[in-house]
């Protein structure tokens, strides 16, 4: 079974994030890492491969240096990587991103495409469903556990109301939540081996897309203005000296909350 996992490089969680006032985009110049939920998707793909055999292919859209982050997922056990790196694609919104990934995925011809449900750098949990529509494939989102056989997948979707078991024939697209598994740490052998694994970088034109479909030119949304920082009001922090319960009551009564 061939499994494609869409992964994204994001600013490292420990880095203080900022928006570049010039481009109004998230400043991605600092330390980077793979989006945490994408690691769950990689882990799930590896488990399926271990159970059923096959190949795990990483697919990513990002700057050239994203190949460093892809290396980590290769070290976990993925077999190869396909990176779409193109200046023209910088600043792509959902439209451009979903076009580029769909085209890259058409190349890979996977039986199963996995996404991490949401990215940590401000994307909504929307990419998987958009790509599925472009590929004209069934999609199951917010999946907390997954069963795969030769011809179909059954995903357990967590919703606001409980769980739904959803079945779809392969090829299919599945977006997993971080509840699905605990991603493994790469072994030393894995880290050494990752260096020699195939990693291909392609441009937007290599994929047969016109540069106008991606980047800012291809975006249907725009960032107009950065507002001022949001003030949460005055924060109060106290240590309990036996009177904390009374202080909490006073605080919420004063605000007409009790």
């Amino acid at each position, binding site marked *: 079974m061939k499994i494609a996992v869409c992964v994204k490089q994001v600013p490292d969680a420990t880095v203080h*994030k900022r928006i570049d006032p010039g481009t109004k985009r998230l400043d991605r110049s600092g330390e980077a890492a793979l989006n945490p939920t994408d690691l769950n998707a990689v882990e799930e793909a590896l488990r399926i491969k271990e159970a059923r055999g096959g190949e795990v292919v990483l697919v990513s859209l990002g700057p050239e240096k994203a190949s460093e982050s892809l290396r980590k997922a290769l070290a976990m056990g993925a077999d190869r990587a396909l990176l779409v790196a193109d200046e023209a694609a910088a600043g792509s*919104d*959902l*439209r451009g991103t*979903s076009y580029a990934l769909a085209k890259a995925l058409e190349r890979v011809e996977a039986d199963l495409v996995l996404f991490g449900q949401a990215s*940590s750098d*401000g994307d*909504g*949990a*929307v990419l998987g*469903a*958009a790509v*599925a*529509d*472009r590929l*004209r*494939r*069934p*999609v*199951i989102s*917010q999946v*907390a556990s997954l069963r795969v056989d030769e011809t179909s997948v*059954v995903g357990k*979707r*967590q*919703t*606001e*109301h*409980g*769980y739904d*078991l*959803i*079945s*779809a024939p392969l090829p*299919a697209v599945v977006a997993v*939540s*971080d*509840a699905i598994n605990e991603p493994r740490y790469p072994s030393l052998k894995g880290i050494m081996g990752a260096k020699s694994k195939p990693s291909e970088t392609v441009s937007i034109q290599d994929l047969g897309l016109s540069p106008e479909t991606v980047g800012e030119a291809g*975006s*249907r*949304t*725009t*960032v*107009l203005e*950065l*507002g001022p*920082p*949001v003030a*949460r009001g005055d*924060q109060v*922090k*106290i*240590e*309990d000296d036996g009177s*904390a*319960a009374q202080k*909490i*009551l006073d605080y919420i009564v004063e605000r007409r*909350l*009790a």
Partner: protein
Amino acid sequence: MTILVFLEHHRGELEKGCLGVLSKAASLGEAAGVVLGWGAGEVALRAGAFGATKVYACEDEALAAPLPQPRVDALAALVEQTGADTVLFAASVLASDVAAGLAARLDAGLNWDLIDLVLSDGELVGKRPALGDTVVVDVGWTASPRLALARAGAFDPAESGGSVEVEQFEVAFSDFSTLATLVEQTQEESSGPSIEDADIIVAGGRGLGSPESFSLVEELAGALGGAVAATRAVVDAGWYPYSTQVGQTGKTVSPKLYVACGISGAIQHKVGMQSAGTIVAINKDPNAPIFDFCDLGVVGDLHQIVPKLTELVRSHRA
């Protein structure tokens, strides 16, 4: 501006978040609702009170299960039929998939996580918090139709009264849209008020120490007339049902008061409750991240403080 609002319904009731978006839409332009699935025509009638002049309903068998792709077909057909220039959604697991699929289908722009929508010189502008809600970014669309997902609880439903015209419509489904099927549905019901609708939420985390300590949280919630919520850590540990989970893989809530007991405030939890009006946190670790974004932070032992607070609230209310 002609706006379609996707109205999600569950067990014969329209979701509160969708009605909030509908009320907002009615204040911006001509708003019509869209109700899909079993019983749609009946449910649709209730949308009139919240500002819809018209509701489009389709009860096709393919829309019976809460799956996104047939809904994309339905909305795409409606956008074409009505010439609507804007489609609004209240964020949910289902609505996010529908909005994303529709954006791809129509090659349209989608902005998400919006906490407000305003008209600026006649143009629609969305307000989106960024960088952990430390700034608000104004976002727009460069083409029509414009698609938007509102953050859960962003808008309060405004009941204005009024009747509504329900128009049934037919959908031709795409071949791939009906491939996914619902095998089984498990409803998790918690006792007490639902956390999405509650004005007051008392939430418990790992700091409670044991599942038995959830009774402290329940009693305080009871005294305040609020609902009980939990973090992913304690839901995963089996201490409390998933239906009460707040955070990235659970629900997003925006009560007037959120009391966090023994919750460290990891980002995954924060995204689900940061828009609460007032956040009170009780935690014994003075360096817990929750102290960075709460309004009143109390460093101390919740096992001492919470029962005392419950007593004080009871006598205050008596």
